[in-house]
């Protein structure tokens, strides 16, 4: 993806030196405030101090922070704000937040190289840049005060938006210093000293989310809530079979519905445009669309499984080759072979896919919640033939992302409809369309072999990953030599001391179903597989699963630390009531370590009840422990839901599931107690939004094994196999 053309292409230093005026211009395309009413007036903006693209301070002392990453529940608006505020020395109560406009140059994520929120990378990527941004602004403000007082800036200090002199007899508020600060040369970000972790006053403290207030009173604005004067509403039907086309539409019947204005027929879909969504949906039903199912009409889940079974026998691109695993396997005392099968999964975010578009001759305005604003801008520019800077992406809060909103298919569909509509149109997908036209977590079929020596130690570990490559489609430059580094994350580098390990990847693209990133990405499948086999090996070695893992972690103190903490807090080894068992899982993923212990009951009819999940995490320096706990609670449930219920299946080229009755979410009456324990650390932060999600499934299935002796190698868990 190329750099955004929405800002002039002078170099960054040049941009920063131009200062307040240009900063105001760039920032003025951001949508109005998230947390405070209405944006500042233009006059105030031009008089504000904007030393970089993230911070703007006006004469009244109002601090506006522009959020480069999107808030989809993971708490990133709070965490990123804390990073800036720690160095800027302002109170969180003083700041207001804005969604960033699309610009890879200004807001690119240094891990993903684009302005994209994903891979649990936001805090990792912005840990240094945002603290530097805050420190640069504070340095300038302090220098401005020191100059006024004729003292050495090193003798001054700042706190809560006020600069004090050495004796604290004189003080100036930031707002009083913005004009003087804006006139000073801006230091290079890496030239300013950052605080030592021991001096943090904000980072590491439990801070309440900054976006809560508007989320408990209905004021929070998600993409679906955009209100554009003159807007019409569209309901859509997309070809049920991927790649099919419209055969017939009863347009007259649709138009006869009161409130319906227009029927739009585009390739592979029909939209009914009306005065409100109720009329649009009624019109769509009346339209009684019939379909030609196209080339994928015969595809079923069985075909895709057979394709995976066959192609996974081929050798793949090597992800890891250490020692000589094949030879070691041949010489092993015990050999273990296993196949693991994982299903397609839908994201089913609570906010269904939607996008509001106003397409005009020379510009296209979009109101949407997206994890990838610059990608969205680029693909809409390509579709419409307009220049990128004519595509205005007004980003919003996301009603759940989970990877679904990394793709811009929903926006493209809305723009294709808008090409036939005069004026703004809001396109909302039904839940059925959202589930049946998702882009799915791939199905996988992995083959593993392991060999143990006489003492039970694993001397050989061979893992073949087989499935669709999302990376090859989404970010082709990152797909090198046939290897999808995401698909093998946590498989190629398990935390254990394996002297001989061989991991390869076979790309298998299923026909008739698109694939995409899903919360937990590669690790959400690989940790399940690795930790399930580890449990089998412990059993084969006749050792306790925790003792066995510990014996392979002497080289890996952080992994050992979380394993010990989780098992201690969970009371590993203590007696349990009948039909209950504990299972453990351990992972290194997203740059952090995690262990979970699940306590599970399996009833005689096979029903699985998860009572408790204890999680220990070492993700380096923690920015907001409150968010960490929330992500463990939520992430564990997201992974648990998939392990218990999640499966998208195809029949006749069509997705069989359609709504929450057959694509089941976990509900209040089913949820376990989730406990979070954090290891104190001074290491750089690891990613966290996805880690608890990828760690949970094997803790559950290993607990089921502890109760029943039955090993789950296919998800979702088939409880009919657990009857006793």
């Amino acid at each position: 993806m190329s750099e955004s053309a929405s800002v002039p292409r002078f170099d960054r230093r040049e941009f920063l030196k131009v200062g307040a005026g240009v900063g105001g211009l760039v920032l003025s395309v951001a949508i109005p405030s998230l947390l405070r009413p209405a944006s500042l007036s233009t006059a105030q903006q031009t008089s504000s101090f904007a030393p970089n693209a993230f911070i703007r301070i006006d004469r009244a002392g109002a601090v506006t922070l522009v959020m480069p990453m999107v808030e989809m529940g993971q708490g990133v608006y709070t965490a990123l704000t804390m990073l800036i505020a720690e160095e800027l020395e302002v109170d969180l109560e003083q700041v207001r937040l804005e969604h960033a406009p699309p610009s890879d140059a200004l807001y690119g994520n240094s891990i993903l190289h684009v302005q994209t929120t994903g891979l649990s990378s936001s805090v990792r990527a912005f840990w240094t840049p945002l603290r530097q941004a805050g420190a640069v602004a504070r340095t300038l403000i302090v220098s401005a005060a020191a100059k006024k007082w004729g003292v050495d800036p090193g003798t001054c200090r700042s706190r809560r938006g006020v600069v004090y002199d050495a004796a604290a007899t004189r003080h100036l508020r930031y707002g009083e210093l913005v004009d003087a600060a804006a006139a000073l040369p801006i230091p290079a970000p890496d030239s300013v000293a950052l605080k030592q972790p021991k001096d943090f006053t904000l980072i590491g403290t439990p801070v309440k989310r900054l976006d809560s207030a508007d989320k408990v009173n209905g004021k929070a604005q998600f993409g679906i809530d955009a209100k554009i004067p003159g807007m019409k509403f569209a309901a859509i039907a997309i070809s049920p079979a991927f790649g099919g086309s419209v055969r017939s539409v009863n347009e007259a019947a649709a138009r006869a519905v009161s409130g319906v204005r227009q029927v739009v027929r585009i390739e592979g879909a029909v939209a009914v445009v009306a005065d409100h969504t109720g009329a649009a949906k009624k019109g769509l039903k009346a339209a009684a669309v019939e379909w030609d199912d196209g080339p994928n009409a015969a595809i079923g889940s069985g075909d895709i499984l057979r394709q995976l079974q066959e192609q996974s026998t081929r050798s793949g691109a090597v992800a890891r080759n250490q020692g000589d695993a094949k030879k070691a396997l041949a010489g092993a005392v015990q050999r273990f072979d296993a196949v693991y099968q994982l299903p397609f999964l839908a994201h089913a975010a609570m906010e269904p896919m939607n996008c509001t578009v106003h397409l005009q001759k020379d510009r296209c305005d979009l109101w949407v919640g997206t994890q990838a604003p610059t990608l969205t801008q680029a693909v809409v520019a390509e579709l419409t033939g307009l220049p990128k800077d004519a595509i205005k992406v007004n980003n919003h809060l996301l009603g759940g992302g989970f990877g679904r909103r990394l793709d811009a298919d929903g926006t493209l569909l809305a723009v294709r409809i808008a090409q036939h509509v005069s004026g703004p149109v809001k396109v909302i997908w039904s839940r059925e369309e959202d589930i049946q036209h998702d882009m799915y977590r791939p199905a996988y079929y992995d083959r593993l072999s392991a060999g143990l020596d006489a003492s039970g130690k694993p001397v050989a570990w061979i893992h073949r990953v087989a499935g669709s490559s999302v990376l090859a489609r989404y970010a082709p430059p990152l797909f090198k030599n046939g290897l999808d580094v995401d698909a093998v994350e946590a498989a190629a580098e398990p935390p254990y001391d394996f002297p001989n390990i061989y991991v390869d990847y076979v790309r298998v693209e299923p026909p008739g179903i698109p694939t995409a990133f899903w919360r937990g990405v590669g690790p959400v499948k690989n940790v399940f597989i690795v930790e399930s086999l580890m449990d089998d090996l412990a059993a084969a070695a006749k050792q306790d699963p925790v003792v066995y893992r510990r014996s392979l972690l002497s080289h890996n103190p952080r992994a050992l630390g979380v394993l010990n903490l989780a098992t201690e807090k969970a009371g590993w080894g203590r007696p349990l009531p009948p039909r209950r068992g504990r299972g453990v899982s351990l992972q290194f993923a997203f740059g952090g370590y995690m262990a979970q212990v699940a306590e599970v009951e399996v009833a005689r009819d096979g029903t699985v009840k998860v009572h408790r999940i204890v999680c220990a995490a070492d993700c380096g320096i923690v920015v907001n422990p409150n968010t960490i706990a929330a992500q463990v609670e939520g992430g564990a449930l997201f992974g648990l839901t998939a392990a218990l219920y999640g499966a998208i299946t195809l029949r006749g080229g069509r997705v069989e599931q359609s709504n929450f009755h057959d694509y089941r979410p976990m509900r209040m009456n089913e949820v376990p107690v989730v406990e979070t324990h954090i290891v104190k650390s001074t290491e750089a932060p690891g990613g966290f939004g996805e880690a608890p999600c990828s760690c949970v499934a094997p803790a559950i299935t290993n607990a089921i094994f502890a109760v029943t002796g039955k090993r789950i190698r296919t998800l979702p868990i088939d409880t009919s196999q657990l009857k006793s």
Partner: protein
Amino acid sequence: MAFTLKVNGAAHSADVDADTPLLWVLRDVLGMTGTKFGCGMALCGACTVHVDGTPLRSCITPIGSVGDRAVTTIEAIDTTSQGRAVQQAWLDLDVVQCGYCQSGQIMSAAALLKATPKPSDADIDAAMSGNVCRCGTYQRIRAAIHRAAGSLSENRR
């Protein structure tokens, strides 16, 4: 057909078919977007509003069936003591994540506390299991409902 609807204490008119779901009248005709669309089949609870104090799924409630009953939405739930207590407990325990389902969760919780001032965990399961949260905030919702119940009972003393 023209309907007059009592929403949050004020009269509003909407010229729509009688079978139009209340949800779309609130969101698209009246511009009150706090009430959310999630499933369209009363499976997720995101669209929960109160009609004469009773929680209803507005996505399957035809406007023609509402009559002159009073509709309360998330935008005005702070006019009830239960609504205020629930909102405060949500803030105190940092319940929300993406926040999309929370309007419906709060409407269901406020209705629960009105009917059952001191709910047990089983009461909470029964009243709240129709509200889906994909972010997984259930544990905090449960704790927040207990907290709101506690603050309401203190205020009554």
